[in-house]
């Protein structure tokens, strides 16, 4: 959808992921989309170098989210939200509706 604008399909997936979940780490994104983690890391590095996303270490995991100080964030979010509305329902269900609410430690299900 925005692939030609962003340059490739992976960066679109990464941005939709961050739009849907607010934050994410490379391996988690790679597992969600079933793609190699290297490609995800490369795109995240590109976005971070451009000031569009920021990251921080949480334990051993590098967690990424949209950079709240990116001056065009509101406009980018609005473009992503509009494009996300056109994502087919089955794709939304497969990639962008993973459980995110808390789960008590030790709970069997």
């Amino acid at each position, binding site marked *: 959808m925005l692939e030609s604008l962003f340059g490739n399909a992976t960066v679109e997936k990464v941005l939709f992921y961050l739009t849907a979940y607010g934050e994410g780490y490379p391996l988690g994104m790679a597992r969600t989309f079933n793609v190699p983690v290297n490609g995800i890391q490369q795109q995240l*590095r590109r976005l971070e*170098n451009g*000031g569009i996303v920021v990251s921080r270490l949480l334990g051993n995991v590098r967690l990424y989210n949209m950079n709240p*100080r990116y*001056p065009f964030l509101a406009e980018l979010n609005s473009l992503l939200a509009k494009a996300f509305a056109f994502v087919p329902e089955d794709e939304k269900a497969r990639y962008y509706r993973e459980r995110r609410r808390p789960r008590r430690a030790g709970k069997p299900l």
Partner: protein
Amino acid sequence: MKIDWKRIGIAELAALVSEKLRGEGIDSLVVGGACVSIYTHNRYESGDIDFISYAALKLLDAALSPLGFSRKRYSRHFTRDNCPFFIEFVAPPAAVGKEPVRSRSELPTKFGTFVMLTPTDCVKDRLAAFFHWNDGQALEQAVMVAQEQPVNIREIKKWSAEEGFSDKFGVFSQALKVSRGEKRQRP
């Protein structure tokens, strides 16, 4: 002029780099922690200098290599043997929050002149980190700059409201009052 790289100050390095870039027709602006260091006379010491430039990294590579600076592939920061600071080229545009940087300060040094954020924009830049990430260090730095330099508090207040952080401007304003009170009481 001979350069003592091990003892070079942050402002001198900013000037050297800026002059080198200017010589190649490249404009640059110093932002971030280096401005805090300079405006607070090193009460806060930054280990790097953040520049903003619209030039391609390849052009920056070519311009800075005669000074001995190089960068690793994919990175935006340059290092040099024996130099205590590294240099980073932050992605443009030059902005403080949602607002473009409109005014700039120029600082002359023995190695030339460089362009940097004004004290008021430097405070806004630090406050943006405090607003979005609750960064206490950034708040402290904003207070230090406002204490040491003339800043337009009314403009900062208006900007904070436009960014949606009037409540956190209150925290800054309170911290500045306390800090100014402490300064007055010092012998």
